[in-house]
């Protein structure tokens, strides 16, 4: 044997092949089941190196990570008869590979089952609330309840559902048009309100300004009249004071002035000879 290096190589090959049949590794992201003649053993294998019997036993691997599932958009109805298009996804993992293998076998199979369960639960729950509640106030609560219900239902398949989340809650396109119309009307109302508020304020300011102006002018007129009146009175008092000292002479003087003023050019006069003007001696 020692003499034939070829034999050593052959022996090595045999050892390797035998080893590959006796040992198997499970990756950190997987769990494994060992099937003996097609029947699974009652033990799930975690990551690491394990031993099995060669040839009679073979290994089936399962992804132990959190797996995804995306549903297509579907319609559901809320309690106030509004249609809503739901788009959701779920995250799940295989926690019991044995049960999973016995019931579902493959991941696509599990996803199909998940699809049915999630949709029916979601639809039932959405139908119990109004649109506003589904979209905002009760959204988180609905998602949590659906998750719990779905997880409970899927438990028998060795699957744990970690989360079912609603992604989109959209309204069908006809409703969208109606919503756009409403949004537009809402904005138009707001715009009108702003403009009319502006008008109101503007009119108020302008009329107030006019009023103030009128008041100012009226005040001034009043004051002016008073002042004039005072002036007139004072003048009259001065005149009276002075003329009262010699009232007859004032009358005479005043008469002369009046004559002067009224008998101006273009006057025609008829005078008698006896007039004092023509007869100075008396």
């Amino acid at each position, binding site marked *: 044997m020692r003499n034939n290096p070829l034999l050593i190589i052959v022996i090595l090959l045999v050892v390797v092949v035998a080893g590959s049949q006796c040992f198997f590794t499970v990756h950190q992201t997987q769990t494994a089941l060992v099937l003996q003649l097609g029947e699974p053993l009652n033990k799930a294998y975690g990551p690491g190196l394990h031993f099995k019997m060669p040839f009679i036993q073979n290994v089936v691997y399962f992804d132990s990570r959190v797996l995804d599932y995306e549903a297509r958009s579907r319609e559901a109805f809320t309690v106030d008869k509004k249609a809503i298009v739901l788009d959701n996804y779920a995250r799940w993992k295989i926690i019991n590979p044995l049960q999973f293998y016995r019931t579902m076998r493959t991941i696509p199979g599990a996803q199909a089952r998940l699809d049915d369960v999630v949709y029916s639960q979601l639809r039932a729950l959405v139908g119990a609330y109004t649109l506003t509640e589904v*979209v905002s106030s009760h959204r988180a609560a609905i998602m949590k309840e659906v998750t719990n219900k779905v997880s409970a239902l899927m438990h028998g398949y060795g699957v744990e559902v970690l989360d079912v989340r609603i992604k989109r809650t959209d309204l069908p396109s006809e409703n969208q048009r109606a919503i756009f119309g409403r949004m537009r009307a809402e904005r138009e109302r707001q715009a009108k309100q702003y403009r009319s508020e502006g008008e109101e304020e503007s009119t108020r300011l302008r009329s107030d300004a006019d009023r103030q102006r009128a008041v100012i002018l009226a005040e001034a007129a009043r004051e002016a009249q008073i002042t004039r009146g005072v002036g007139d009175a004072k003048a009259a008092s001065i005149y009276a004071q002075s003329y009262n000292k010699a009232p007859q002479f004032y009358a005479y003087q005043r008469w002369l002035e009046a004559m002067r003023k009224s008998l101006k050019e273009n006057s025609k006069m008829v005078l008698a000879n006896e007039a004092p003007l023509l007869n100075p001696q008396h």
Partner: protein
Amino acid sequence: MNWDWDKLQEKRQRQQGGTPPPRQQNDTEPEDEGQDRQPPRAKRAPFNGRGGGSENPFKKLSQLRFPNGKGFLFVGLGVVALWLLSGIYIINPDEEGVVLRFGKYDRTEGPGPHYAWPAPIESVYKPQVTQVLRSEVGFRSVGQSATFQQGQVRTVSEEASMLTGDENIVNVQFSVQYKIGDPVQYLFNVSAPTALVRNAAEAAMREVIGNSQIDSAITDGKLKIQSEATQLLQTILDRYGAGIHVLAVQLQDVHPPQEVIDAFKDVASAREDKSRIINEAEAYRNELLPKARGQSAAMLNEAESYHALRVRNAEGETARFDALSAEHSKAPKVTEQRLYYEAMEEILANAEEKVLMDGPAASRALPYLTLPGLSAPAAPKVLEKK
């Protein structure tokens, strides 16, 4: 003679197959001898001529430069040494090393050179833990992507269109920046982490928008939305044990849908109009009142001046009269006469027509007044009667 030598060589060849390598040395000598004695062509024939027997190719293989026992050992050791050397690896400063042994997680290594058992025993993953990854929702950067925010943007309207809490529709574009928080979790707990982040981000943002009102979402509620979405996304990812650390959720753009955006813009215009109209009214007021005050001052001043004028006039006139009166009282008759004649002088000089009549003639004269016509003003007449 040839036939004999051939047979001898054949025998020796067969012996060679079963004898240990050192013997070959001895065997080549007779071959050389044979070569000397035989033509080259015939010599080669024994080597190439073998077709029968399966052990012949193996023997050829074992003959072909196959080293002896020690050499084989060296080669074997060399191969093993190479295999062992392949276990050396280097972790860069922005990476972490995750080592699996037979598929199972064994340890984490920091930056620098390290050694691990080579495959199939151990395997090393080197995730980049400092790299910031980016996910876009509602839009896609065209051209410069992944790192830089500027550049062209293409809207993905189905992703962007979201329902708000007050049943309005709004378009939201945002990006998520995240990095690997825990490399072990990131690598092994979740399948398709990129898709997970995107889905969870969209769900989180829609939930936050669903709890918001459209007006605050468009204007001043953005910061609040961003921080709430960041927190929610991190909670969701932690629940899956994804080992992802969310750095930021950034709203790129929040605007009303295209169909209603004109109406929204009109609201802003309306606010502007309102300000403008009010400003115009205030300007009107600011122009009017000073003018009015000016006018009022003018009126008052005018009255004041009238007042002053009247008083001054009165004072002047009365002073004049007083002076005259003083003189008159000293010589009343003479003063009166003088004044009278002065006045008459003036008056009669001005009169256009004068008629002088005798007293009795005047009393006999018929007072006949020609009234020139109603249109012309009647001239004043003076009739002195005794």
